[in-house]
C-alpha cells in the first residue's frame, strides 16, 4: 500500500480559511462538492418553508441573515425539494441568479442573492414578485433588503411607514414553529421575512461535528499505508471513541459563547470544527510526522497527534500553548477570550497529575499515551500549561464514570463558567422544563428573591427566611439618596408566579399571573440568579439585564394597576438589626387619622 491523498482532508482544510484554500466554505461551491451532501444537516424550518412556497396562496418569502448563516444552503435545499432531486447529491451546475421552477402549487421563483443585483433589476423583480402569480423565495443581505423594500413600497404607493414593521420582523426569533409570526400583509401578496440570524443554531452546529467524524470519505484512508499511525486518523479515532460525549461538550461551549459572547454563524462553527479535526495538517505533513518518529507501531503518530489534538485545536492551542494563527478563526478567538480550562478546585488539582480520570472522567484509550506524557510534564514546576491542556482534554473527551456524576458536575460547571448551562441545554433539548416540582419551586423562589433584592435594594437575607412575596416599591431610579424606608406599591405573593418554557425564544420564562407579565430568563440572567442565590456577591448584573428587570418591574406595575387602594399604606423599613419589616397603616383622609394595622 502507498501513501494516499484523501481528498476529504483537503476539503476539511478548505473549510477553515487559515490556509490559502478557503474557497470551499461558500455555499455556492459546497453545492457542487461531493462531500457536502453527507455533511448537510437540514435546517428545522425547511419543511415549513417548502409548505409555504407550494401553497396555493401566493407568498413572497425573504430569507436574510449574516454571511455564513446558511441562507444559500436553505435556498439550495428548497430548490432540491421542489425539483425532487436527491437531497444528498451534489448539483451538476451552480445555482443561477434566478431559478424558475414549476412547483406542485404553481410556479416558484428562487432569487439566489438579491444583494448581487443592480438596483433597477431588484425593483423589477420585486415588482414581479408581488404582482405576478406564483410564489417567490428571495435571498438577500439585510441592508439591501431594507433599502429595496422601502424603495418598492414608495414606488408602488404603499404610503405606510413599513420600515419599523420590517425591522420588527427582522428582530423576531426564528424557530421551527408556524411562519405566521413572520408575515407582513402590507403588499398585494403576503410577505414573510425570515432572519436566520435569529435562529438558534447551537445544536445544529454541534451535530455537524458528528457528521464530520463519521463521514464515509474517511474510508478512503483504509487504502493508505500510513493509516494505523496517521495523526489525522488518531485524532478522528479519539473523537469516535468518545462518541456522543464530544458533541454534547462542544454544544455546551457554543451555548456559552452565544449567550455570553457572540452568536456564531454556521460557517464559523464549521470552520472551527474542521480546524479542530485536522489542525491544518495535510496528508503529506501527516506522513512526514510519522516518518520522523522514533516510536513504534501506531504510537508513531502520537507526536503528530500532539500537535493537532481536537481538544487543543478547538480551543486555539497547540501543545498547550496558544497557537496564534488559529485566532484568525472568529470562533477560536471568542473561545480564547473566555479562557476555558482554569483550575477547578484543590481536589481536582491533586488528582490531575496522578489519575487519568481526575476523579470522574473515563478517557478513550487512544489518548492514553498522550495523557501519560502530559501528566508527567504537568507535574513539573513549569507544567501549568499542560495542566490546562489536561483539563481541556478531560472536558471534551471525558465520559462521566459511574457514580461520579456529582463530581463531574462540579468540574463541568466550573469549566463552562456557568452554573446553569447544562440544565439550560437540557431544557432546550427537551423543549420544556425538566424539573421536579420541588426543584421548580426552588428555582422560582431563587428568581423571586433575587428580584426582591434588585427591586427594593435590600438584600434577600434582610428579609425573613420564609418570606414569600415580591414587593414593588417606590424606589428612585437615580439612587442618589439612600431610601431606608420605602413605600410598597404592590405586594405580589410568590405563588402568583410560575416558570414555563418559551418554545419560540427557547428560554425559560418567569410568568406572573398566567402570562400577564413575563420575564425571559436567558442564560446569563439565570446564572446570575443561581450565583446570587448561592451567596456569591462578586458578580454584578450587567446593564442589559438590569434594563430587562426594570422593564419587567414596569410591566408588573402596569398590569396590577387597577387593584391598588390609596388608603392602605405599606412601608418597608430596615431596622437597626438590618432585618426588613413591613409596617401597615390605614389612612382615613376624612377624619385625618392614621391607624396602624
Amino acid at each position, binding site marked *: 500500500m502507498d501513501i494516499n491523498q484523501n481528498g476529504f482532508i483537503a476539503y476539511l482544510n478548505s473549510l477553515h480559511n487559515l490556509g490559502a484554500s478557503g474557497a470551499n466554505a461558500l455555499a455556492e461551491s459546497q453545492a457542487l462538492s461531493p462531500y457536502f451532501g453527507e455533511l448537510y444537516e437540514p435546517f428545522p424550518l425547511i419543511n415549513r418553508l417548502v409548505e409555504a412556497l407550494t401553497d396555493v396562496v401566493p407568498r413572497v418569502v425573504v430569507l*436574510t*441573515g*449574516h*454571511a455564513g*448563516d446558511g441562507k444559500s444552503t436553505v435556498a439550495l435545499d428548497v430548490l432540491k425539494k421542489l425539483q425532487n432531486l436527491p437531497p444528498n447529491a451534489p448539483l451538476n451546475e451552480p445555482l443561477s441568479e434566478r431559478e424558475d421552477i414549476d412547483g406542485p402549487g404553481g410556479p416558484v421563483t428562487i432569487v439566489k442573492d438579491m444583494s448581487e443585483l443592480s438596483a433597477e433589476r431588484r425593483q423589477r423583480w420585486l415588482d414581479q414578485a408581488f404582482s405576478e402569480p406564483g410564489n417567490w423565495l428571495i435571498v438577500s*443581505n*439585510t*441592508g439591501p433588503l*431594507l433599502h429595496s423594500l422601502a424603495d418598492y413600497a414608495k414606488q408602488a404607493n404603499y404610503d405606510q411607514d413599513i*420600515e*419599523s414593521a420590517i*425591522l*420588527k420582523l*427582522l*428582530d423576531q426569533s426564528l424557530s421551527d414553529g408556524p411562519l405566521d409570526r413572520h408575515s407582513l400583509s402590507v403588499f398585494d401578496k403576503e410577505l414573510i421575512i425570515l*432572519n436566520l*440570524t435569529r435562529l438558534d443554531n447551537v445544536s445544529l452546529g454541534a451535530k455537524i461535528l458528528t457528521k464530520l467524524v463519521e463521514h464515509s470519505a474517511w474510508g478512503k484512508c483504509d487504502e493508505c499505508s500510513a493509516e494505523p499511525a496517521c495523526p489525522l486518523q488518531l485524532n478522528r479515532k479519539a473523537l469516535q471513541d468518545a462518541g456522543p460525549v464530544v458533541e454534547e461538550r462542544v454544544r455546551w461551549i457554543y451555548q456559552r459563547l452565544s449567550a455570553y459572547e457572540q452568536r456564531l454563524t454556521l460557517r464559523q462553527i464549521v470552520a472551527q470544527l474542521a480546524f479542530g479535526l485536522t489542525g491544518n495538517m495535510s496528508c503529506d505533513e501527516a506522513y512526514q510526522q510519522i516518518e520522523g518518529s522514533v516510536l513504534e507501531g501506531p504510537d508513531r503518530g502520537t507526536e503528530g497527534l500532539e500537535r493537532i489534538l481536537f481538544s487543543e485545536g478547538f480551543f486555539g492551542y497547540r501543545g498547550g500553548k496558544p497557537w496564534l494563527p488559529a485566532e484568525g478563526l472568529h470562533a477560536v478567538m471568542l473561545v480564547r477570550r473566555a479562557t476555558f480550562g482554569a483550575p477547578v478546585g484543590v481536589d481536582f488539582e491533586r488528582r490531575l497529575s496522578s489519575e487519568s480520570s481526575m476523579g470522574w472522567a473515563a478517557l478513550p484509550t487512544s489518548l492514553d499515551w498522550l495523557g501519560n506524557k502530559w501528566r508527567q510534564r504537568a507535574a513539573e514546576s513549569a507544567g501549568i500549561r499542560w495542566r490546562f491542556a489536561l483539563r481541556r482534554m478531560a472536558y471534551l473527551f471525558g465520559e462521566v464514570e459511574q457514580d461520579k456524576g456529582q463530581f463531574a458536575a462540579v468540574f463541568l460547571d466550573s469549566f463552562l463558567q456557568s452554573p446553569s448551562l447544562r440544565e439550560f441545554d437540557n431544557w432546550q433539548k427537551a423543549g420544556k422544563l425538566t424539573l421536579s416540582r420541588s426543584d421548580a419551586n426552588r428555582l422560582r423562589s431563587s428568581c423571586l428573591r433575587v428580584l426582591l433584592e434588585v427591586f427594593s435594594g435590600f438584600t434577600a437575607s434582610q428579609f425573613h427566611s420564609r418570606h414569600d412575596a415580591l414587593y414593588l416599591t*417606590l*424606589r*428612585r*431610579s*437615580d439612587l442618589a*439618596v*439612600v*431610601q*431606608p*424606608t*420605602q*413605600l410598597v*406599591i404592590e405586594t405580589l405573593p410568590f405563588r402568583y408566579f410560575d416558570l414555563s418554557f418559551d418554545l419560540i425564544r427557547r428560554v425559560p420564562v418567569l410568568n406572573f399571573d398566567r402570562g400577564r407579565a413575563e420575564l425571559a430568563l436567558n442564560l446569563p440572567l439565570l446564572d446570575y440568579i443561581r450565583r446570587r442565590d448561592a451567596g456569591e456577591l462578586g458578580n454584578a448584573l*450587567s*446593564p*442589559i439585564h438590569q*434594563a*430587562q428587570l*426594570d*422593564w419587567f*418591574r*414596569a*410591566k408588573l*406595575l*402596569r398590569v396590577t394597576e387597577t387593584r*391598588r387602594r*390609596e*388608603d*392602605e*399604606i405599606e*412601608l418597608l*423599613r430596615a431596622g437597626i438589626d438590618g432585618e426588613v419589616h413591613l*409596617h401597615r*397603616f390605614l*389612612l382615613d*383622609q376624612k377624619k*385625618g*387619622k*392614621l*391607624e*396602624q394595622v
Partner: protein
Amino acid sequence: MDRFPPTGDQGIAAEQTNPAIRIYGRRFYKDQTPVEYLAEFLLVFASPKGDQQNGTNSLRLEIGDTPPRYWPDDRVALKLFAFYPSSKLETRHPVHQKAYLQALTDIKARVSGTSEDKDEAVRLLQSLFAGFVGVAKNRTWVTHSFLPASSVLLAREVDWLHSRAVKNANLQDWDAAKQYFATDRHNFMARGGELLFLQLAHLFSYEDHASVDAMRSSASYEHLAQYKLVKLREDIEIELQSILEDAVGPISELASFIEKALGSIRLYESSKPASLGWVPTASVPEAFLFASELNNICRSTLGALEKIDLLQTLSCMQVLRSLCFQASRVDGSNNSTDGFGGGYSWIVADANAQSGSPVRKLAQSSFERIEEMLFRVLRQVSDEKTQKFNEADKHGFQIFRKIAKELGLVIPRTGRGQRFVLHPHLLRFLVAALIEPGERVRLTEFYRRVFAHYGIALGDQQLLVAMLWSSSETGTKDYAVAADTSWVEEALQQGGFLVELSDAVSIVHNPGSKE
C-alpha cells in the same frame, strides 16, 4: 429682540439687565441644580396661572396687560416635618425648633396606638419623605427641595433669612418669624424652569408657527412630520398630569394628611403669586424639539420615577440646547449645519479614548468652539462698556460648562482637556427621547435624529458637517473622516436597545410601548 410674553419684563428697563438675560430671556442662573430645573418647570405647569387662577396642569398662558403670574404652593409644613431633623445645625432657629416639636405632637395626635407606636409611625413617615429629597446640599430645611415626583412634592423656593432673624432677640413665635421667610429671591428656583415652561407656552400659543412648518417639511425632521401642535400639547398635558397625580399615589395621600395635620404652620393666609419672566420668540424650533422629546418620554411605559429621572436630564439638555441655539442665532455668521437646525454642533468622544487620540482632540476643540461662541455673543449685544459682563459671563457662559459637567456631558470635572462625551445614561436618555415608544429604527437613523435634535455628531456624515462647523474659522474644508462609533454601539447593546442584524445593519429599539 421679540419677547414672549411681551409684558414679561415690565418695569425693568432693558439696559438694566445684563447681556445674558437680553439674549436668552429671563433667565438662566448658574446655581440652579438639575433637579430644580425640572421641579420649577413642573411647578409652573401644575400651579394655577393667570389672574383667574385657573389653568392648572396646563402648558398655556393667557397674555394680558400685566406680567403673567402663577400661584405656587410653598409646602413649608411638609418640609419642616421631613427635612428639619437633617437640616444644617447653624441655621436652625429656636422658633423652627418649637414649631417642629409642635408639628410632631400634632401628627402623633392623629396616629392611633401607644406612644411607642406613634413615635415609630412618625419616624417612618419622616424617613419615607426624606428619601424623596431632591436637593439638600448644605442648605437649611426650608430651602431643601423634593424630587418632583408628585404635585404635592412641588414647592416654590422659600428662603430663611437667618442672619437677619437672629438679630431679632425678641423673636419668639412662628407668626413673628414669618417676615424672615422670603419668596422673591430666586436663588435656587432661579427661573430656569420657568423659562422652559415659557418656551412651550409660546410654542403652543399658536396653532402653527412658520418655523415649525419649515421643520416638519424638511428632510432632517421627517420623523416629526406627523406632529400637530394642539394634539401634542394635549398629549403632554395629560401625560405630565398623570405622572404628577397618579404615579406615586399613596405618597400624595400621606403628604396631604401631614399638611392637614399641620394646618397651623403656614406662611401666608392665601397663596401668593409669583411672576414669570420672558423668552425670546425666536426659541420656537428648540421648543418644538423639546416638546417632541417630552412627549416620547412621557408616553413610555417606564416607571414614574424613571420618567422623572429622564425628564430631569431632558430639562438640563434643553437648557444647554437653548443656550447654543440662541447664541448661534445671535452670532449670525457661519451657522449652517446640514441636517440640524441649530447652527452649531457638539462632537463627542468615547469617554475612555486615549489622550492624544484624534477623536478626543476633536471633542475637545468642539467644546472650545462652543464656549467661544457663548462668550462672544455676550459681547455682541452689548455695545457700551458696562461692568455687567461679570454677571453675564456667569449666567450666560459659565453656566454651559457647569450644567454640561453635572450631566456628565463634559468631562473631566476639573483639570485640562475638557471635552464632550456621552455616557450610557445619556445614551439611554437619547433613545427614550428620540425614538417613539415601541418604535424600531436603524442605527443610522438614530444617529441622524441625535444630530437633528442636539447637533451631536455620531455618524460619518454628521461628523463631517460638525467638523466643517468647528473648523470654519481656520478655513480648512478637506477632511477624510471615519467615525468610530463602536463604543456607542456597545453601550447601546449593553442597555438592551441595540439589536445587531446582518451586514452592519443594526436596529435601535425603544422598548417602552404599551403593546
